């Protein structure tokens, strides 16, 4: 059933964007713009693949990928929070370096040999629900990571808008000075948030390489990190909005893949469908982010003027 397959693949395509965007939402709400998300995703994708292949275990891959994300989040924090370097410069530097290092690493480790095959992902079938026609297989017969991503949405929403931690976080983005005066340790919080951002990007990259695709390819993120940033912006940093937007993205990517595989609607040239995800991102920004109020302290390093 094409629709069922399409819906299922929509969720899988949405998952990397969802992970990254949830993290970015927290980061940007705290005033940090992690433009290096693409690089973090790519690096995590690589380490996850190498670890999973060496240990022949997807779980090891996940640990490696998330760990990589946290490490890079921490590195980013040192540079951007403590040294107060320009977030854009460091972020873009991460992206360029990650592309070079991962492709280099791929060749150094595997040379021209064929890449090892990973253990296949385990689908968690939620028994009675997955028998529902059409949507059953798509929504209730996915791997654990997809469920994790979806479950994180209400968690992230709740923490951001209904807890003191979330309030402190949002204050960081609005006015770090106010937060500081109120006793919040701006630097420590931003460190923690950035490690979370890195972890989420790590999860996303891990999912991409060892679950969704099954191996690592040069530049396999193909701009997803930036798309996630775009999604975060036009969802106005609201985790629920992020979820919906990620689904839309997943739909666009899924459609592109489906058209190619099924030769569906052969009259539309291939390339037109390929650009759907990118048009979607721009369109989303124009449609929804125009009146969005950016967190005033976004991308500005915090200095204590005493």
């Amino acid at each position, binding site marked *: 059933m094409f629709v069922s397959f399409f819906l299922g693949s929509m969720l899988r395509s949405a998952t990397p964007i969802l992970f990254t965007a949830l993290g970015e939402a927290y980061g940007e709400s705290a005033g940090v713009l992690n433009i290096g998300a693409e690089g973090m995703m790519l690096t995590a994708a690589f380490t996850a693949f190498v670890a999973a292949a060496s240990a022949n275990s997807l779980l090891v891959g996940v640990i490696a990928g998330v760990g990589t994300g946290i490490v890079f989040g921490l590195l980013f924090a040192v540079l951007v929070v403590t040294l107060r370097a320009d977030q854009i410069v460091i972020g873009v*530097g991460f992206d360029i*370096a990650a592309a070079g290092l991962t*492709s280099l690493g791929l060749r150094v480790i595997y040379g021209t040999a064929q890449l090892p095959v990973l253990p296949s992902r385990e689908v968690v079938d939620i028994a009675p629900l997955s028998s529902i026609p059409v949507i059953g297989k798509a929504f209730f017969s996915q791997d654990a990571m997809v469920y994790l991503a979806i479950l994180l949405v209400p968690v992230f929403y709740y923490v951001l808008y209904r807890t003191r931690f979330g309030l402190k976080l949002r204050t960081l983005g609005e006015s770090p000075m106010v937060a500081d005066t109120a006793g919040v340790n701006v630097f420590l919080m931003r460190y923690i948030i950035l490690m979370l951002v890195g972890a989420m990007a790590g999860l996303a990259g891990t999912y991409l390489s060892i679950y969704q695709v099954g191996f690592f390819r040069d530049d396999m993120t193909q701009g997803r990190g*930036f798309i996630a940033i775009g999604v975060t912006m036009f969802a106005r940093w609201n985790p629920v909005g992020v979820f919906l937007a990620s689904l839309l993205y997943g739909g666009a990517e899924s459609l592109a893949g489906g058209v190619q595989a099924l030769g569906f609607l052969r009259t539309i040239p291939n390339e037109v469908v390929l650009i759907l995800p*990118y048009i979607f991102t721009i369109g989303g920004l124009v449609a929804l982010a125009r009146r969005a109020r950016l967190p005033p302290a976004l991308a500005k390093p915090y200095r204590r003027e005493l």
Partner: protein
Amino acid sequence: MVDKTAMKSVTLRRALRSSGALLRPALSTIVALVGAFVTGAIILTSTGFNPMQVYYTMFQEAWYTEFGIRKILIETLPLLIIASGLLVCFRAGLWNVGCQGQMIIGGLLGNVVGYSLGTVPSPIIIPLMLIAGMIGGMAWVLPPAIMKARWDLNEIVTTLMLNFIAIDFELYLVKGPLRNAKISTHPMTTPIVATAELPKIPGTQVHIGLIIALALSVVVYLLMSRTTLGYQFRVLGGSTSAARYAGLPISRLIVLSLLISGATAGLAGAVEVAGVMRNIDPEWVPSYGLEAFPLVFLANFNALVIIPFSFLFSTFLVGGDLMHRALGLPIFFIDALLGLMLVFFGAAEAVRQLQLRWRGKKD
């Protein structure tokens, strides 16, 4: 009575500080280069390569072979042109990461002009081609520019999305409407007519695009340092609120600076087509746009300093490619170096800013 000793020491301190002012920005660049190469050496050693051998081969192949030198001059061109334009928009605080796409569109448009105006003499068709390139680049950056100016939509995301779109659009155009019907084996565009090709500088193998690139750098230098517009860009880049307070036409400045960088990227594309390629392959995705990024930073946004730095960067690229063929080290190592340079530069600049604040507080 003025205390002459006190005055002397103050003057001396001031003189030292201001002479240091020239040194210190360059320090970040040096840190960036050294840091990147040292980190690169660590990476090389851990992957079984000898860093000294790698670096030596890189420079030797680039500078001591005729092939190397020639390639460097050819590669410097588009890099320099793009960097000159990027400098303008970076100075205005705007991040155009879509230069690849703008270059592609500019190249395509230039290509089309280059073969459609068959019987027009060289002195007319060449400028037309180059202008077409600029128009292509500008058209491609215009939507993100407007989106930023009107609605403050992040230009990194928008220009990058258009980048990806350009790559797919190119595939479609070259395989479809712009495909050269005469060649059945491989999709490519129709080549430009002979009169549209850029002539070579007499006595050398390099085409006059080099002169265009150098002239452009001078123009940009004068623009940024001697004109009101350049000053306005710099104010905008320094602080948006200061610019607003000063009553500057912010929307117009945003669009203009982005258009300039788009125009240069498109120009680079047209120059490549007119001087080197003659026609376009569907998978032509030039990487100069991304390589120019760290270049502009390391040259400290100085349009004249960009000239030697373009040579330096194309040395890395050309040398890297030749070294890859000689030693088998994957060429991605060079990309890693460039990324590291940018990160180290950012870190060094940050430390420098921190240092300046410390000094400021002490007095």
